[in-house]
C-alpha cells in the first residue's frame, strides 16, 4: 500500500533530501518502520521511547493522528501523511 509522506524543509534531510517520498504500511507505525529501514535514523527524530516526540505532529490527510489511533491508525491507498515539527522562526 503506497502512502505519500510529506515533510517540512528542515526534515527533508531525514528522507534522502526529498520533500515527499512514497512509503509502505498498513498502519502508521508500519509506515514509520518502513521509512526507518530505508532512511536509518529517521525515527529518532520523530519518536522517543516508542512515543511520538512532543514537538513533532503527524497528520493523516488533515487529521492529527493523536486524535485518531496514534501509531495504530490504519492507512489506505492514496493517503497523505505529513510530518510537521514545531517551527520557531519569526
Amino acid at each position, binding site marked *: 500500500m503506497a502512502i505519500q509522506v510529506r515533510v517540512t524543509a*528542515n526534515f527533508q534531510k531525514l528522507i534522502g533530501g526529498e*520533500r515527499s517520498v512514497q512509503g509502505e504500511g498498513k498502519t502508521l507505525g508500519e509506515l514509520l518502520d518502513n521509512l526507518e529501514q530505508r532512511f536509518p535514523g529517521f525515527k529518532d527524530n520523530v519518536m522517543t521511547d516508542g512515543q511520538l516526540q512532543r514537538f513533532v505532529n503527524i497528520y493523516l490527510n488533515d487529521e492529527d493522528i493523536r486524535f485518531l489511533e496514534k501509531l495504530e491508525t490504519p492507512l489506505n491507498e492514496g493517503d497523505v501523511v505529513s510530518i510537521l515539527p*514545531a517551527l*520557531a522562526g519569526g
Partner: protein
Amino acid sequence: MAVTVYIPTPFRRMAGNQSYVRAEGENVGEVLDELGRNFPNLRDMIYDRDGSIPAHVNIYVNNQEIHSLQGKGTPVQDGDELAVIPAIAGGQTLTPEQVTRYSRHIIMPQVGPVGQRKLMGAKVLVVGAGGLGSPSALYLALAGVGTIGIVDFDVVDLSNLQRQVLHQNEDIGRPKTESARDTLLSYNPDINVVIHDTPLTSDNAMEIIPQYDIVVNGADNFTTRYMVNDAAYFAGKPLVDGSILLFDGQLTVYKPGQGCYRCLFPAPPPPGMVPSCAEAGVLGALTGVIGSLQAVEVLKLILDIGDSMTGRLLLYDALSGEFRTVKLRRDPNCPLCGDNPTITGLIDYEGFCGAPFPSHEVTA
C-alpha cells in the same frame, strides 16, 4: 445609464433598508438627484440646503472618490457602482482625511465606517519586530488599528534587512522597537505606537499582554513562543500565531478555550533538535506571506467577519507553492488549557529551548 448605488448602514433606513439600490442618470449629479427623489429622507443627508454635497459625505464611483474625478459632473456608465459614504459612525466622526485614507475599507460593506471605527479603537500587541512582526505590524498600521504595541529587546542588524521591512539601512544598531515605531508612524501618523523594549518574561508578560485586545506572535524562539501562548491564555486574549523556517510557514489563531500552542506541541524540543532561522535560514519573502496573513486574521477578528483560522492550522510550502490546512483541536490533556491543567503560572524556559534570551545572536 443604470447604475447600482451602495447605501452604507447609517443611511440604510432612509433607503428602504436596502444595501444596494438602482438609479439612473448620465452623471453623478443626475444619479443623486434621482436617489433624492426616490428617498426624500436620504436626500436631506446627501445634499446641503444649497444643493451641494456636505463635506462629511464622500461619493465614490467604482471606488474612486468623485473629487478626484469630475465631481458631480463625473459621467457614469451602465453597470457602474456608486457609494455614498458618510463620515459619521457610532456617534463618532471620521475626519475627512480619515475618510479618504481608509476609503477602500469604508466602501466595503463588511467594513464600512463602523468597522473602520472598530479598527481605530483596537489595541494589538505584536511580539517581535522581526520577519513576521514587520509585515503584520505594517498592515495593521496602514489599516488604522488605533494602538499597536511592539515588544522586542533586540537592535537592528544588517542580516535582518533581508526580510524585516520595518527597518532600513540607517536603522542598523538602533533598538528595533524605535525603528519599528518610526516606520509605522511615517506610514500612518493617525495611530498610536507603544513600544516595550524588553524581552517578554514571566515578570512582565502579565503586565503587558492584558493591555491589548489581540496578540500577534512573531517571536523567533521557542522560549518566547511558549511564554506568549501561556500569557495570552491566562489573559484571555486571542493569539494570532505564525512561524517560519527555511521555506515553510505555519499559521493559526488560538482563542482561549478553543486550543492553544501546547495542544499542538505540548512541549518545546530539546536544544539543537529544531534549528532557528539564524542557524538554518529563511526565504525573506516567506515572512511577508505569513506575516501578512497574520494581519488579515487580526483584522477579521477586530471586524468580526469571515471564518477565523481558529481550529485550523495553515501550512504553506513555498517550494511547492501549496497551501494546505489541517485540523487543530483543543487537547483535553493539554497541560495549559486541558481539563486538568498542570500549568497554572508562567514558566521561564530560559536556556531550555536552544535559543536562550536575551541573545543578540539568535534573531529571526
